[in-house]
């Protein structure tokens, strides 16, 4: 069973890696932000699988912290990019 959990963690990490190759390169910022989202879900899944397989304790809290912060990259981007991009602000000056 341990091997199965580790192998699935490996497969998920591999799909994350393939996805990263595709989206980190862009073309747009949206694609790149998806990378943060992708590693959020895939990373948490493999984190939990590895923790159960290797018997590391207290890992749920690490995953919980990561899950809480999963949307922060996108939020920070929207927050900082909005004033420069929104047409009404750009034209208003």
């Amino acid at each position, binding site marked *: 069973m341990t091997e199965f959990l580790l192998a699935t963690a490996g497969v998920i990490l591999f799909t994350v890696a393939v996805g990263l190759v595709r989206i980190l390169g862009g073309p747009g910022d949206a694609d790149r932000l998806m990378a943060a989202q992708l590693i959020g879900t895939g990373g948490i899944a493999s984190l939990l699988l590895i923790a159960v397989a290797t018997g*590391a304790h207290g890992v749920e809290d690490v995953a919980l912290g990561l899950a809480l912060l999963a949307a922060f990259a996108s939020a920070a981007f929207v927050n900082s990019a909005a*004033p*420069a991009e929104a047409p009404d602000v750009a034209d208003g*000056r």
Partner: protein
Amino acid sequence: MTSATLAGLVGAALVGLGLYGLIANPQPLRKILAFNLMGSGIFLVFGIVARKGAAAGLQADPVPQAMVITGIVVAFAASALAVALVLRLFEDTGQATLNPDAWTKPPDGGAGAE
């Protein structure tokens, strides 16, 4: 090769990568990224010292772990100060470059009309 040694080798490689980025990347923000990368590489090398100090029923020596935790927080504080400096430079000159020749050009309005 144990997983600890492997992690240590990754740490060594990260230090090399970070050092290269710190020297070769001209943009200040990229330098901050590279510096953080280098720092985390050092933390990892220290982390395997912790892992190799597993004893007394613990899976890793707690003293290096505590120091790495302290280090991560201090690295964040330093990054925040550095980012604030870069943003201030950008506000004053309209550029975010360490090349003083570029500062003399008039701000191109990138910062808005502050």
